[in-house]
């Protein structure tokens, strides 16, 4: 099992699906950002798994995974700053109460 690429890819698909559910279902903006982090981690797991099993990708996959981590850090920083800025104005972290552009 540990030596089959499919096991890692299915694990990554499950993690991505859990992240998708969280992103679609949670009301709290920070919970949605945490779900996005789960999805990015799932993609990273798939990349590293391909790198470990397919000979031509060995080193490139690790480089791509590390760059994805850096971009995820930038995304989390800006996303949380936006959530905090909105929270300061609207006094709520719940996304379905952010309806200023619908009225």
């Amino acid at each position, binding site marked *: *099992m*540990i*030596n089959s*690429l*499919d*096991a*890692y890819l299915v*694990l990554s*698909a*499950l*993690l*991505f*699906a*859990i*992240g*998708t*559910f*969280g992103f*679609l*279902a*949670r*009301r*709290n903006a*920070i*919970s949605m950002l*945490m*779900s996005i*982090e*789960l999805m990015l*981690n799932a993609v*990273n*797991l798939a990349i*590293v798994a391909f*790198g*470990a*099993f*397919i*000979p031509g990708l060995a080193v490139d996959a*690790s*480089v791509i*995974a*590390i*760059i994805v*981590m*850096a971009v995820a*850090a*930038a*995304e*989390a*920083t*800006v996303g*949380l*700053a*936006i*959530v*905090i800025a909105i*929270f300061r104005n609207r*006094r709520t*972290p719940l996304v*379905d109460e952010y309806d200023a552009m619908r009225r």
Partner: protein
Amino acid sequence: MALGETAPIIGIAFADILFVMLAAVMLGSALMVVLLRDIIRSGLAMIVCFAALAGIYVLLQAPLVAAAQVLVYIGAISVLILFAIMLTQTKAGPARLVFQTQSAAAAVAAIVLALVVAVAVGATDWGEVGERMHTATDTLARVLFDEFVLPFEVVSVLLLAAVIGAVYLAKREESGPS
């Protein structure tokens, strides 16, 4: 290793047991992240999920990625998210309703997505799939600073821009002319 390759009684390789345990911890804590009502607890479950994923990177023999996972995700992003949770908790306590009204549809969509990807993974022939290979850190460093040096520098500029943007967005508005 002093122990044999396979566990004495059940006859399963130790590495397989380790993989199953790490996968179970990772998926369980990921489910806790999306299902728990208390957002602080789901933030802490996220740290457990990242730690188990770092263990899986070690099983995939990518030590530098595992170290970066611990440093970046557990050390930085989780702390950032926990601070944001503390800043946005209201005195009224957690909201009555944690989930949107369409959460049942979201669950169906997520399950369908997982099934489709799992079937696609099973049906695809990945070509020459070898054994797990070790990614040596010195080779990785050589490739990162030679072939991938432009993306590396672009990422550093991106991080700088993100830091400046985050400080600008999150700072309190001055009550000056605007």
